[in-house]
């Protein structure tokens, strides 16, 4: 104690040495801050997200890392709690000084951390399909959006089944905004929403909802229910012989309901997705083989897990093209319009105006044995909507979320 006190400069010097050593180590590695829910109500969807990221990082590290630098993951589990999302996002950005932030499942969690990301200079990748419309230079969205999912699904459903639609949706921003999209697209096709029900998260009993639908007699149902509790709708509707076609932007490819419920609960469900495990192109088969080798117990390689995997490669491509991890340098690469990678679904690119991603979209249908087949292949679809309505992140950064009822002011 006394010896240290007599030579304070020695302590200071060693502290300085340690500091520079950690700085050098940080230089060596690229740190990904990862926020994925692997416990709680949506763990069954979040676990594959974590696995997708782990697989991509392992592959990249084994083949030399990003610009020769290894990747390190700092994963925290916010357990679908938005307050924890905010706390953990702050911790990863301020204390752990991560190079990039990835993750979030629900739109509520994304909107909870976006302001925190915006006050920092860390780039944020949201890897889920969602209700679309976020025009924010700090965020890249790598999942599918309504112009890729609804603008394809709804016209097909209208042509095949009819114009009268009943919507059941989870009562939070995703459900509400997706319902707005459905109404908007349906209106342009001369269809109509003849019934609409928003369900509080956590509700598991649907007797009344099923009867309301039977009374309304829609041609088909748009199912935007979220979370494991609300998924009970399918079992209860099937038991009550509610035999009406269903469409969705989130079922099958995210929560693999066709594997979790006994047939025929999900029969006659139709969804449009950029990924689902039943895709069988050579690139997809190869990807699934690598995934199953690392995670043999995975119940279903879902769209979220796939997007999480692809996102790490997207980040690698951006950093290597920019030769930097700084957000502004990465955005310069995106602005060229050449930010593309070869993903298992095919070649996909980040759109400079909206910083959303183009995707290869397929319409999948479930039969009464719960087999999934591709009913229609839409090919590559750009995330065009934000650019069309006036979001251009190469010019302005409004940091807003828009929807058909809330367009940017021209």
């Amino acid at each position, binding site marked *: 104690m006394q010896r240290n006190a007599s030579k304070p400069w020695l302590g200071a010097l060693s502290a300085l040495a340690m500091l520079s050593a950690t700085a050098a180590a940080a230089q060596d590695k690229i740190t990904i801050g990862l926020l994925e829910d692997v*416990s*709680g*109500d949506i*763990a*069954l969807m979040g*676990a594959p997200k974590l696995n997708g990221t782990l697989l991509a990082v392992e592959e990249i590290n084994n083949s030399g890392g990003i610009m020769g630098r290894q990747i390190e993951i700092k994963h925290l589990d916010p357990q679908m709690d938005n307050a924890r999302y905010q706390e953990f996002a702050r911790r990863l950005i301020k204390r752990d000084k991560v190079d990039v932030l990835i993750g979030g499942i629900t739109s509520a969690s994304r909107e909870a951390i976006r302001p925190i990301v915006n006050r920092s200079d860390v780039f944020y990748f949201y890897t889920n399909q969602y209700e679309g419309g976020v025009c924010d230079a700090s965020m890249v969205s790598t999942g599918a959006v309504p112009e890729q999912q609804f603008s394809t699904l709804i016209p097909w459903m209208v042509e095949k089944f009819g114009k009268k639609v009943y919507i059941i949706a989870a*009562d939070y921003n995703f459900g509400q905004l997706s319902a707005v999209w459905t109404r908007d697209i349906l209106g342009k096709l001369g269809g109509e929403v003849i019934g609409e*029900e*928003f*369900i*509080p998260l*956590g*509700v*598991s*009993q649907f*007797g*009344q*909802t099923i*009867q*309301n639908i*039977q*009374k309304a*007699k829609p041609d088909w149902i748009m199912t935007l229910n979220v979370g*494991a*509790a609300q*998924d*009970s709708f399918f*079992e*209860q509707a*099937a*038991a*009550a*012989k*509610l035999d009406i076609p269903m469409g969705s932007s989130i079922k099958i490819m995210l929560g693999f309901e066709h*594997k*979790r*419920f*006994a*047939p025929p*609960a999900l029969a006659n469900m139709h969804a449009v997705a950029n990924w689902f495990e039943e895709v069988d192109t050579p690139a997809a088969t190869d990807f699934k083989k690598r995934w199953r080798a690392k995670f043999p*117990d995975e*119940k279903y390689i879902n769209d979220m897990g796939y997007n999480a995997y692809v996102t790490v490669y997207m980040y690698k491509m951006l950093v290597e093209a920019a030769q930097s991890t700084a957000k502004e340098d990465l955005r310069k690469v995106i602005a060229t319009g050449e930010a593309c990678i070869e993903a298992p679904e095919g070649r996909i690119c980040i759109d400079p105006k909206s910083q959303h991603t183009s995707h290869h979209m397929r319409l999948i249908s479930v039969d009464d044995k719960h087999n999934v087949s591709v009913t229609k292949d839409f090919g590559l679809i750009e995330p065009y909507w934000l650019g069309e309505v006036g979001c251009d992140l190469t010019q302005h950064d409004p940091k807003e979320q828009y929807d058909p009822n809330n367009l940017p002011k021209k």
Partner: protein
Amino acid sequence: MFAEIFSILFQFADVFAFLVLAAAGLAIIFGMMGIINLAHGEFITCGIYVTVAGVQQGLPLPVAQALGALTAGIIGVILERTVIHRLYNRPLDSILATWGISLIVTQGMLVTLGSSWAGIGTPEGSFQVGEYTFSSYRLVLFAAAVLVMLALYLLFMRTRYGVLARATMQNPQMARALGVRTPWIYATSFGVGAALAGLCGALYAPTMTLIPTMGITFIVEAFVTVVVGGANVLIGTVPAAMVLGAIRTALNAWQGQIIGQIGMLIAVILVIRVLPEGVSGWLLRRNR
């Protein structure tokens, strides 16, 4: 017209059954024994998972369901003997302990059993009234709810065990002085409560998603029904479930699930404000 009336009655029976079955076990553990059991949902989950595992092993559904209730009951007795019996008259500690157990169980199940299981499907059978079709299994649930309440009444009012249990809950010192083995009474009562929670899970297992945290979806309904019912569970639970069920069914039909849930919770606040001892306290005072 008949179809409309039948549909309203059917929905009421459905909500009533859910409230009664979710609350029955808690009515004994919380209502009678005074243990604020935050692990109630996990006893329900236990019933669900054992039932599903049983069916997957080839057991007939009713046998698997009985096994689910029995397993939850046995675990309840073991838990009472190891943890809960230290916590009588320590309500805050019992909240913490049972909450801890709940967290350990849900996370433990997530780690060992995985994030989801494949469902077993609701037993076949549906019937049609007017333009509506209904699942026959929902009638089984309603019948089970009525039978559970009847069995509880007979157990506590007509058997020797029932007399001893009520005596122990009312005045443990006096019961002990008269030769009642109160630790045994506590353990079996807790076991009965846990078994009823397990039975609730077993009955709803075919109709729901299977994830480790699914017990939580029963918790709110269970607690509000018991609180509205008041201390005397034999008199209180049924009228409480009827009042809450009627309010919820009417609002669900009129304005949808959000208003239904809000309305039910507002009704709970009003009842507690007007009748602090719950429905049973009010009924007892009126008869005195």
